[in-house]
């Protein structure tokens, strides 16, 4: 496929991400305004960080005037899951992909873009990744700005409906392979079960969500890798 085709196919796959980001960033903008951030600062934060959980956590740090070191440490904890995702994504880029492409692709490796990239068969082209980012990044920034400027621009019903767009994508990415492989189905079910336990059980629920994802990933992906190692070249598990 030509670079343009790769790019356009990415733009198309990025459209649901764009919809979801618009809703999530809009509510983020409302929250940013509430702690005293202006439209420019909030939009700048979204354009340079491109991460929802980290940005939300940042708001409470800014609101409580905590130190810059605490900010750095909090971001490290919440966003450390990207380290796992980027490691997995490194295997989706052809080994010959030059560093400058890797540096740009890395910037856009959000949970959702990672999800869509993982669902692709074989290697992905950096141009596909650029296509994936094309709508979501401006959408994330614009939605933030709109949320700060006018919290009532989008009706609550629409925001509520759009809020499941990103989860819908995650489900699309994990369920279809789970249907073909019992191992993946088991991995998905067990992950959700542990997630429920970590979310609601006393003590365990005090663990920040960023750490929760890492702990469960190490546990389940680690055990699955030991018990059901991926055999053939294509990486399929039957």
């Amino acid at each position, binding site marked *: 496929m030509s670079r343009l085709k790769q790019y356009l196919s990415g733009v198309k796959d990025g459209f*649901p991400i764009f919809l979801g980001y618009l809703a999530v960033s809009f509510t983020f903008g409302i929250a940013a305004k509430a702690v005293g951030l202006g439209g420019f600062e909030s939009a700048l934060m979204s354009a340079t960080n491109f991460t929802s959980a980290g940005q939300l956590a940042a708001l409470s740090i*800014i609101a409580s005037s905590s130190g810059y070191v605490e900010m*750095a440490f909090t971001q490290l904890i919440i966003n450390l899951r990207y380290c796992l995702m980027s490691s*997995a994504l490194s295997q989706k880029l052809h080994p010959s992909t030059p560093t400058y492409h890797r540096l740009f692709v890395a910037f856009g490796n959000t949970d959702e873009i990672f999800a869509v990239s993982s669902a692709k068969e074989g290697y992905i082209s950096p141009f596909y990744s650029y296509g994936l980012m094309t709508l979501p990044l401006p959408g994330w920034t614009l939605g933030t700005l709109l949320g700060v400027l006018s919290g009532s621009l989008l009706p609550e019903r629409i925001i509520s409906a759009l809020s499941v767009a990103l989860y819908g994508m995650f489900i699309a990415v994990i369920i279809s392979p*789970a249907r073909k492989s019992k191992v993946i189905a088991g991995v998905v079910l067990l992950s959700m079960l542990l997630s429920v336990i970590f979310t609601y059980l006393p003590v365990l629920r005090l663990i920040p969500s960023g750490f929760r994802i890492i702990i469960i*990933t190490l546990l389940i992906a680690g055990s699955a890798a030991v018990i059901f190692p991926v055999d053939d070249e294509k990486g399929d598990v039957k």
Partner: protein
Amino acid sequence: MSGNPFIYIAVMALVTYLIRAIPLTLIRKEIKNKFIKSFLYYVPFVTLAVMTFPAILTATNNLWSALAGFVTALLLAYFNKGLFAVSVSACIAVFVVELII
């Protein structure tokens, strides 16, 4: 708020970017180690499942619309509909249920 918002933004952007960029630039070869290869293969399934559930249940205005969106997405994904169809149908399901309830 007494800190400089621009320094906060710069600090968090730098940390977040480094976390994303370091593995992607350092791991350049295809990983041959069977354990690590298998581990990374399972990573997306675990991370995405953990992020989806139970978080999706509290994402909308009420539990019933959230359940409608969740079940719609599960069904369509099970029947191999694409990302876009699954995602948009889940949104529509939420919207419709909230109109009724």
